[in-house]
């Protein structure tokens, strides 16, 4: 290895070490957003922009009095080849609420989510023959993220 390359690499490593020491490259544990989660979230966003409107059951209240507990039901068991179901809350800071891989199960999920404010929720159904979505607007009177 020539001297220039050696120096470049040493400087790079030192810079990173300094940055870490200064807390600039500390993993943002506060948000617990692993790279796996981010990948799935980015994929969901992309899928939503390319997806067609689907014909499946998507239940969410029109008005959620408590944004901390919004019941969501998605039932796409009528659709063939469902691979996954995702819940995407557009206005949330972290829009992806959850992503369920349907392996040996019915494509039917019920859960409760938090919503910071009135938002459109998108149910994303990934199937072997493409992605399908359904949007529902949920009005939130009391935000569910504690301000």
């Amino acid at each position: 290895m020539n001297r220039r390359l050696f120096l470049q690499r040493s400087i790079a490593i030192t810079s990173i070490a300094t940055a870490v020491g200064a807390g600039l490259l500390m993993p943002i544990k506060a948000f617990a957003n692993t790279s796996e989660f981010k990948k799935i979230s980015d994929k969901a966003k992309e899928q939503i922009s390319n997806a067609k409107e689907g014909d499946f059951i998507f239940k969410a209240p029109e008005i959620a009095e408590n944004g901390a507990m919004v019941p969501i039901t998605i039932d796409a068991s009528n659709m063939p080849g469902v691979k996954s179901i995702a819940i995407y809350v557009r206005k949330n800071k972290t829009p992806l609420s959850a992503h369920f891989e349907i392996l040996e199960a019915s494509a039917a999920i019920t859960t409760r989510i938090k919503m910071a404010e009135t938002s459109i929720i998108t149910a994303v159904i990934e199937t072997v023959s493409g992605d399908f979505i359904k949007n529902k607007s949920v009005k939130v009177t009391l935000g569910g993220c504690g301000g």
Partner: protein
Amino acid sequence: MKKIKLKAKSRSGLITVRVLIKHPMESGSRKNKSGQLIPANHITNLSLKKNNRLAIKATIGGTISENPFFQFKIPGIKGDEISFESIDNLGKTLQITKISK
């Protein structure tokens, strides 16, 4: 409240599984009264198995409600063994196994 409760009831070849977990599900973006960020403490992954075969695998974010509730439906009959497992960002795991009614 017990940390995790699971009910599995079969009907017409389909088992409805209901799970309720005691967990604060802190997203990590909430602030306490002094304006400091409350560190993230939420379930990140879960899995549901029937007779030890993976039925559902999920990636969970911090915006699932506190004390999360999930309902799943899997093909099955009375007597099938249903097991649920979850892990949070702090590495704590929860597990429960029940025989479907």
